[in-house]
């Protein structure tokens, strides 16, 4: 499988992508701007900085993933470059892997470069700056963004126009980041016929809430990196599956399943 050529070509092209540069600027303004604001307010503390950064990143990083991911396959099909690359000895799986590697590398570069630039400000103005925590925070942001990038890429392999991919990807974004826990709670309420349950919620409710990507992400940040707050759904939970490893596995699952489904559909499609 010669996916390296696809990934390399994708990255070569990325230099000319306005979206990627805009995202880089946006992330830098976000990371750096918040730091500058705290400096302005006086007595900047790294604790406060990272606690404020966590929820913002939780909302913005998935958007970046979607923006960089939604065109992965449908863009190549609509522009006709898929015809070009698949006329060479690339398999459809190779095309997908190459595009995912290329796009993910681009996302990671954009976030890491912005974080690196911002860390210059942090290093200078924040006496309590912890490099290891900030690196961990950046890495986790990349993982979270990648999850949504892969969801969008998966949709991009299945749906027939980029408009539909955008609509579905933003639907997934809103559903998964804002309404996942609400949906689970609603389901629980309906199942229990509106009788209020007392005490600990059902185990499956906790599990379902916990594996929501937003919850998993915020849990890892709070638990491992002490950034932001532990999500309400699992804050008091004594369930043994509420661990960072399960949270990470949940994010990986959210990334891989759509790609797998997308691959199965793209594999048998006519170009």
């Amino acid at each position, binding site marked *: 499988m010669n996916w390296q050529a696809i990934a390399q*070509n994708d990255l070569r092209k990325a230099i000319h992508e306005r979206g990627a540069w805009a995202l880089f600027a946006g992330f830098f303004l976000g990371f750096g701007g918040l730091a500058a604001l705290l400096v302005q307010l006086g007595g900047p503390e790294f604790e406060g900085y990272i606690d404020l950064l966590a929820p913002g990143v939780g909302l913005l990083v998935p958007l970046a993933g979607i923006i960089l991911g939604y065109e992965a396959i449908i863009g190549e099909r609509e522009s006709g470059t898929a015809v*070009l690359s*698949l006329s*060479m000895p690339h398999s459809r799986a190779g095309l997908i892997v190459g595009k995912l590697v290329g796009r993910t590398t681009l996302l990671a570069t954009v976030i890491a470069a912005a974080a690196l630039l911002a860390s210059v400000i942090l290093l200078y103005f924040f006496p309590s700056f912890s490099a290891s925590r900030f690196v961990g925070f950046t890495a986790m942001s990349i993982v979270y963004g990648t999850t949504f990038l892969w969801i969008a890429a998966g949709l991009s392999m299945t749906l027939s126009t980029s408009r539909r991919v955008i609509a579905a990807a933003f639907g997934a974004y809103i559903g998964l980041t804002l309404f996942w826990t609400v949906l689970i709670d609603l389901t629980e309420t309906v199942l229990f016929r509106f009788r209020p349950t007392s005490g600990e919620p059902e185990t499956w409710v906790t599990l379902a809430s916990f594996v929501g990507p937003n919850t998993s992400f915020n849990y890892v940040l709070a638990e491992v990196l002490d950034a932001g707050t532990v999500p309400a759904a699992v804050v008091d939970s004594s369930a043994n599956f509420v661990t960072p490893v399960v949270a990470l596995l949940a994010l990986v699952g959210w990334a891989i399943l759509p790609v797998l489904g997308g691959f199965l559909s793209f594999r048998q499609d006519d170009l």
Partner: protein
Amino acid sequence: MPPAIQIHDVTKRFGSFTAVDRVDLQIEQGEVFGFLGHNGAGKSTLINMLLDHIRPTAGDLEAFGADCQTDSVEARKHMGVLPDGYGVYSGLTGRQHVQFAMESKGVDGEPLNLLDRVGITEAADRAAEGYSKGMTQRMVFAMALVGEPDLLILDEPTSGLDPAGARSMREIILEENERGATVFFSSHILEQIEAVADRVGIMHQGQLAAVDTIGGLRDMAGGETRLLIATDNLEDSHIDAVEALDEVDQAGITDEGRLAVTCAKDTKMDVLLALDERGVEVLDLTTEEASLEDLFVEYTRRSE
């Protein structure tokens, strides 16, 4: 030695529309095969099935013994392709496009040499999206030539090219064939095919209406020739005598006063002898062979 292309009973339907209808075709290694047909005749559909871009409803295709569907990467390793309906990578230059083809095929080399060969050296470092149709076509042709492929598959290669460009592409096609490459190319322009192809397949409404050498096709389509004969004196009785000959379809007088005879190719001498016997002196003789265009019209009409 497996054939370069083996197409066995291939059908492709899109809904209720049959784009390709039970096509059988074998192309030997080393051939230049021209694939002729109107737009929409099913040429590109068949080519896209060789590339595994679309899948046959029934039947199977092989390139150099590799199944184009189950083993499509292996099949495409033998190919250099100028496909139909491609787009270029925005932001990338011509050089980078050829470089991508080299990396994809695992070939080392200098992209500029290939761009030079197709005649767009000076545009190598400009973004390909700004190229004209003809330049884009040349660039993708250069991508197809990467790695000296065993089989060149060219879908309407000369579209968008000016006559000089089309001629230099034909020259490269012949050079590649000289090197040992099999060439399979489609066109709706007869002259293109006539100029380079050893064999021709005529595709019409999804079916392969005929496969033969150009000479063979001429013979099959009647092989009729039109003779224009200038004579010193010509009387109606002479015309009747010529028309009475076997294998002469028609004889008459043109506006310029020449004798025009439509007959089978090998009856030419009989006509001249018949005139000589009657004391008619032949001053000048021109023949008009049926053009491939006539053949094509003949074939497509017949299969309707």
